[in-house]
């Protein structure tokens, strides 16, 4: 092991502008600007959108964008925990697709047995959450007890989950029975106080996530593990258990996102949830969480998710840049954000 540190100047490489600042308190200005970066970006984007098309700044459009963001946003909140702890999960899109397929099959099957579409939908929702938790548990156990890189484990399950959905659906689509679809529909299309249900759920998940991350032992341990796993282990943190739980939490988030998504189309096909993993990871990164773990913020993640879907929305509403280039614009944004954040850690 290297000899211990003996001079504060040695640390400059680690904490570029924070090291040996005996006089100053709090964060430097630059840090504040970077922390506020995603929200500033979002505000600027909204101004641009309003200028380009007056339809952008309408209530309906805002609700539309936020409702669509909800799926990715909810998954991104879970992803935020996994990334802060130093892990990654590439399988969430496939997982969502498989959970959607399983939900639909189970609901179609139990509806006649139970005789009540409402009960069938409730069973389906419970199935979604249980499956998400179970898949997350499997990831966590393989990663910690099996000592396999999270990238590898979830790359494997990315293929496995989607293949099973394709197998169950015979390559086509699994569709929810009409009566069930009508019962289930309001979960996506309904609103409370004029705000669509998915937005409320998104909000609740984000608030719960922020509380968990910043104000509980668990959240502190997650940050400690991502910052330096070895130090955390020596400090009597139950590293494996905490890490497994981050994947379980993410799995449950995927379950929640899926149970909101299913009533939207009432079907699942091999293209369901395609590339969701990248959008979720991008939202976390754009929100200011470092991919190598340690620190991150739920608020940033939420803003990141909204920011990415606002870009798509503006491209849809205007004709300056082709809507086919949506993914390209998002890609540029991710790279620019990463560029601005470089040297932060």
């Amino acid at each position, binding site marked *: 092991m290297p000899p211990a540190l003996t001079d504060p100047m040695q640390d400059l490489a680690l904490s570029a502008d924070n090291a040996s600042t005996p006089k100053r308190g709090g964060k430097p200005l630059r840090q504040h600007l970077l922390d506020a970066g995603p929200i500033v970006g979002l505000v600027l984007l909204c101004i641009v959108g309003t200028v380009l098309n007056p339809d952008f700044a309408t209530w309906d459009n805002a609700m539309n964008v936020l409702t669509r963001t909800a799926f990715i946003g909810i998954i991104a909140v879970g992803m935020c925990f996994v990334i802060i702890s130093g892990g990654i999960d590439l399988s969430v899109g496939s997982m969502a697709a498989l959970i959607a397929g399983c939900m639909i099959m189970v609901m179609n099957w139990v509806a006649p047995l139970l005789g009540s579409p409402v009960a069938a939908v409730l069973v389906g929702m419970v199935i979604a959450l249980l499956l998400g938790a179970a898949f997350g548990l499997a990831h966590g156990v393989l990663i910690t007890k099996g000592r396999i890189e999270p990238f590898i484990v979830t790359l494997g399950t990315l293929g496995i989950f989607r293949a099973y959905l394709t197998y169950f659906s015979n390559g086509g689509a699994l569709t929810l029975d009409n009566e069930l679809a009508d019962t289930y529909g309001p979960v996506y299309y309904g609103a409370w106080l004029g705000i669509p249900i998915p937005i409320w759920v998104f909000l609740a998940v984000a608030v719960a996530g922020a509380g968990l991350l910043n104000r509980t032992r668990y959240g502190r341990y997650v940050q400690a593990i991502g910052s330096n796993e070895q130090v955390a282990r020596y400090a009597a943190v139950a590293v494996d258990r905490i890490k497994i739980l981050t994947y379980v939490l993410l799995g449950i988030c995927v379950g929640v996102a899926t149970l909101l998504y299913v009533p939207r189309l009432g079907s699942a096909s091999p293209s369901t949830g395609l590339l969701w993993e990248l959008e979720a990871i991008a939202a976390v990164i754009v929100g200011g969480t470092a991919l190598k773990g*340690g620190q991150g913020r739920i608020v940033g993640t939420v803003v990141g998710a909204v920011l990415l879907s606002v870009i798509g929305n503006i491209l849809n509403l205007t004709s300056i840049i082709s809507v086919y280039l949506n993914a390209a614009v998002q890609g540029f944004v991710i790279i620019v954000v990463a560029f601005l954040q470089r040297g932060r850690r």
Partner: protein
Amino acid sequence: MSLSVRFNEVVKDFGPVRVLHGVSFDLAPGRMVGLLGENGAGKSTLVKILSGYEPLSGGSLEVDGVVRHFASSREAEEAGIVLIHQEFNLADDLTVAQNIFLGRELRRGWLLDEAGMRRAAREVLQQVGLDIDPDTRARDLIVAEKQLVEIAKALSRKARLLVMDEPTATLTPSETQRLFGLIARLRSQGVTIVYISHKLDEVERVTDEIVVMRDGRFVARGPTAEHTRQQMANLMVGRELSDMFPPRVTPPPAEPLLSVRHLTVPGWARDVSFDLHPGEILGFAGLVGAGRTELFEGLLGLRPRSAGEVRLAGRAVSFNNPREAAHEGMTYLSEDRKGCGLHIRMSLQENLTLMDLDRHAKPWLDLRSERRALEKAVADFGIRAGSLDAPAGSLSGGNQQKLAMAKVLQPDPRVVVLDEPTRGVDVGAKRDIYFLVQRLAAEGRGVIVISSELMELIGLCHRVVVMRAGAVQATLNADHLTEEELIAHATGTH
């Protein structure tokens, strides 16, 4: 061959913080200078400027009478100035030969001249007295070997001025001897040497003169022979140092608090038995690789154990991880502060309370109660921090160490194991830590101190267990114990 250097009013700012306030002195060619100062005195920054790792913010640097601005360590190396880092700069996955030639590989046409590099590497390794295959991967070297490879690397760069920053921090006495022999040879070849060390006895032995810095300023210089160690220490801290060690207090007789029998950690320690009593400070001495750290890592479940029985306060225990140990009232401070001890990027508060979050969770974390714990620890442990919101990495080495100690004491353990508690810590902070350790024992805790500094073990502990090659060689009473006796047991020449 020799090279002279003059610092002219050198100023260095990191952001708004000035760490060097116009330092001026010169280094005569072919001399060996001991650069002394407490942590944060600016020694490392100054030698980083000299060797091209940091630009200066004001003043100038003259090499052989010419003003130079090294834009990189490479330029400094071309001028013959090489810094051997306190922390190793070896790429773990490359071989020793590849490391030695990293950045200036020998080539034959378009291809690397592997054979030539291997040959040349073997030569410099021989010069430093290191008998290893140049194809060994750096990862597989022990710490002392890495240190010697760093020196070999510097030699292969034809250094005319060599800066050594704490070169012996991780060396055993015999390896230190070998290093001193090497230094003597280099000096006879006319290499100017700047030697930074906290070990004043070494400075006294090997340097021609000393330069003392304090708080980013030049304080004094003079021939080494004209200063006693006490005087050097006083110059460094800027005040008189009273006795380094607290008076020894004999604990009242009692049943053992920790009782270890026949503990075996495969590959590291075998059949180790010892007792620790309440109020006792038990030292563990031994050479690097004697298995002291690994023994306790095994005890805490960080490494597999194959045999042994451990009783804590009379109860048989078998820890699978540090968490279980902490619950039973035993905590461990790692020797590797940055790798296992502290989260350098996290705040003081988050570091301090990590092992004892249960006390601050109701169930939501009570940040104010955490802050109170931090304020208490800062007062109790004498942690000097500019801002309580700063990351742990912004503290000086000594204060980081005090924070790390405060952290492992948060769960109020009955037994605390301190592994190299004063490594890389300056004289003033060392004394503070000794008094803290004494206080922990006086509170009735059992304290285990693993240390490579023999004086520390003799001055601080009640008894010292000496380990050699994984086995207990002797358990000695620290009264009337001498360094020679300890070394004899540790090396097996008793």
